[in-house]
């Protein structure tokens, strides 16, 4: 069971009720687990205050849905009398809309409950639409809506075991590929049992992967994998980095996502090329940061950095070098840590609590003028050296890009040395780092594991190790193509497998029980 994240909530509302519905307010941050918010969402509960905010939000959305300007096309029937309850019309509405919100057909009890709420409220308010709104608001705060529930059923092919229901499979597919609720076609396929057949599953997977919404799903995955939620609390000192505006920060996130979609989906390139490619997109605000021309400063333009430029690969984009810096100075350590943890899925231990960061943060130190010199002095302390060896030889390569992602050759008048090393491969500059990442087996392995965990909403377990090793091989054989990898995952049994830790058999037919997490 996973809590919807903010992006999913907003997308569902837009998909079901239209993009003009205003979804105001803020959502509680999710917990990152195993490198993914999607996994952390399975370990999150809703607090009282959070539920209160969901309730306010639900009432606002429901009010907009039944507003006179929308009711004629969002509500498929008209009440006999708008000042009274109309169970028949309410039933028709909740049967269709409820199916999209709960991602399955409502049980008869659930449907009648919604009709009852709508009727009671309509009678009290003398307003059919007011009643409908109250009932819809209740649906939007129901656990069945707010949580993606992995419902199970007895597996007819394996007596005594359980499997995901077809509707739960549909949700898993849809949130993975589209980051939203299943559409009517997918739910219909689920209701017909097609998702439990190889051909039926393929048909839906292929349909969904050729849809424009697939890009949304891939963007959501990389936004999560690259921990771009850090942008939500991101700050830069405008006096030190005048070009790094709020617009530039927003565009930095978008730049990387556009680059990934272009390279991996549109051009179907080798995943590892994201670290060596100079192709990207720039906006007017980013043009200022990178100091490059932009064909259309009011929009996004394709751009290719020249061969001798320091900027190569997504790791040199502002979404890493500026995001993984301090507000007023760069950070070789944070950048190196990000490469290890985010791009290579390696855990770097947290610093011990008694570390003295004074020297490292003294970027105006008259003796240790460059970050390399300061970190070198800092890392002479044994308690620091071990971890810094993992991070700094990577991060120091980015030092020609300051904390605001602008190019420089000097720090405090001292030339910047960009040489570095990654797992035994030495390099001279950012291009060399890109090549080292390209060649490092941890890199494709990382994205495979993250994709799989993102799809299932949980961390893989030991029992899945052999399957993942086989997938790594196939990923390599396919030329590290992400769409092919995604397709293999969605067509695999593994994606829908029930693990002992989160399995519970559903009850009798007609009732549904949720898997505890």
């Amino acid at each position, binding site marked *: 069971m996973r809590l919807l994240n903010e992006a999913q909530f907003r997308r569902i509302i837009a998909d079901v009720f239209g993009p003009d519905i205003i979804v105001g307010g803020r959502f509680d941050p999710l917990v990152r687990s195993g490198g993914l918010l999607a996994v952390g969402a399975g370990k999150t509960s809703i607090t009282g205050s959070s539920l209160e905010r969901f309730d306010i939000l639900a009432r606002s959305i429901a009010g907009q849905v039944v507003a006179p300007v929308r009711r004629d096309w969002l509500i498929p029937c008209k009440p006999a009398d708008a000042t009274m309850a109309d169970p028949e019309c309410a039933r028709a509405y909740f049967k269709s809309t409820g199916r999209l919100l709960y991602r399955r057909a409502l049980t008869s009890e659930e449907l009648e409950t919604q009709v009852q709420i709508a009727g009671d409220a309509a009678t009290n308010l003398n307003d059919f639409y007011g009643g409908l709104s109250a009932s819809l608001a209740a649906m939007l705060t129901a656990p069945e809506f707010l949580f993606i529930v992995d419902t199970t059923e007895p597996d007819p092919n394996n007596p005594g075991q359980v499997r995901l229901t077809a509707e739960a499979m549909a949700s898993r597919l849809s949130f993975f590929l589209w980051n939203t609720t299943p559409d009517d076609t997918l739910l219909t396929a689920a209701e017909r049992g097609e998702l439990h057949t190889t051909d039926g599953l393929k048909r839906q997977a292929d349909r969904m992967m050729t849809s424009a919404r697939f890009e949304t799903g891939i963007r959501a995955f990389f936004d999560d994998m690259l921990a771009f939620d850090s942008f939500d609390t991101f700050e830069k000192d405008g006096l030190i980095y005048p070009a790094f505006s709020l617009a530039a920060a927003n565009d930095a996130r978008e730049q990387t996502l556009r680059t990934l979609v272009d390279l991996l989906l549109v051009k179907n390139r080798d995943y590892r090329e994201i670290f060596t490619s100079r192709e990207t997109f720039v906006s*007017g605000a980013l043009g200022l940061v990178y100091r490059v021309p932009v*064909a259309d400063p009011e929009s996004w333009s394709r751009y*290719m950095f020249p061969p001798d430029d320091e900027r190569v690969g997504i790791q040199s984009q502002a979404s890493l070098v500026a995001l993984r810096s301090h507000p007023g100075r760069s950070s070789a350590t944070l950048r190196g840590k990000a490469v290890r943890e985010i791009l290579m899925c390696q855990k770097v231990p947290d610093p011990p609590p008694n570390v003295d960061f004074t020297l490292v943060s003294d970027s105006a130190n008259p003796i240790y003028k460059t970050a390399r010199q300061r970190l070198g002095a800092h890392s002479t302390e044994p308690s620091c050296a071990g971890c810094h060896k993992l991070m700094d030889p990577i991060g120091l390569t980015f030092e020609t890009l300051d904390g605001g992602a602008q190019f420089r050759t000097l720090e405090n008048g001292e030339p910047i040395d960009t040489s570095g090393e990654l797992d035994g491969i030495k390099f001279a500059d950012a291009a060399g780092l890109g090549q080292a990442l390209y060649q490092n087996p941890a890199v494709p392995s990382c994205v495979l594991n993250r994709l799989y965990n993102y799809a299932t909403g949980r961390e893989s377990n030991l029992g899945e190790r052999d399957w993942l090793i086989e997938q790594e091989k196939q990923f390599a054989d396919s030329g590290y193509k992400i769409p092919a990898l995604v397709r293999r995952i969605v067509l695999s049994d593994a994606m829908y497998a029930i693990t002992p830790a989160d399995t519970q058999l559903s009850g009798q037919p007609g009732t549904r029980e949720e898997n505890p997490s």
Partner: protein
Amino acid sequence: MIRSRSLVTAATGLALGLSAPAMAASKTLGFVVPSWETATYETKYYDECPDGLAIGNDELWWKGLSQRDKDVLTNGGEMEPVDPPRRPMAVLRGPKKEDVCWNPEIVVDPPQRIVKGKFGYGMNLDGTTDGAATPKSCKHEKFVTPDGSTYVDNQMYRLVGCIYGWRKGNYVEAHADRERRDSSVGIILIEVTGVDDEQNDPEVEVSFHATRDVLYKDINGAILPYATFRVSETQHYGATAKGRIVDGKIVTDPADIRLPLYGHQMTGDMYIKDLRLDLPVQGPADDGPHLGMIAGYYDFDSWWDYTRRLESLLVTGQWSCPAMYVAAKQLADGYPDPETGECTAISTAMNIQVLPAFVVHPDRETADAGSAAQ
């Protein structure tokens, strides 16, 4: 920040599918001009204005009123005339209440007080040291630069230098400048193509464009360098001049150039004949603006078309349209009319502040771009 122009130009070419060697043959420099003002030489005690500051329209209007009108406007002398009737009424000084800014010859005001000092800034447009008439200029007085090195022509300074509102930092030019920076309207682009050597290049081409793109600013409101600006699609602007780079300065041969003009919520043109540019390629190390100069003969009709519409500023700026018009006609020193001999343009010089920028042409397949190395 250090980034060479060659890098930038090559990057642009690659982005657009051009071959790097072809692009490497020459470079393009781009600049945006968010700020400019008339080049004036001012002293603390108005030495350059021995007759004092120009008489304002208000004073002339008030003196021309009947006692009855004055009593109506002051409630029998008990109050100052309030703005709403005063501002629109004060310019209606013609015999039949005509607007004297739109009909500057309909009344005769006392002559405008003008600059009579020796020093001034600008360029030597007519090539003389004494201001004697030439085929392209009328006889006039020259200024000499304060360091005594150059005789220059800047009759526009002579005209406006003793007007309160036109003096440095005052409302007329300073406010228009703020408006341009705030609104991004009336922004001038300078594009230098064919640059082979940023220090000394005997042949470059300099274009002057308009843009409708916005100026990017930092948190203090300072305009940021290296933004991209698209050349406005109108054919009205974009004239070019032959030029060269001499000891790190871009200088151009005279060329007739039309520049966009915006200020006080009014648009217009600055049509400047024989315009020359003097601009350092390199800016200061702190990414601040480069300081340069544009000088030439401001076409009288183009100038007056805009200036007469500044009548709402007469109260703040303190000048008289009829007196200014007459003085400007008398001071005009360029482009004598072949029939009347009367000059039709007035020498001017403007201090400009520019920032390196990328200038792109949406109507071309290639985007020419450049910036100054630092």
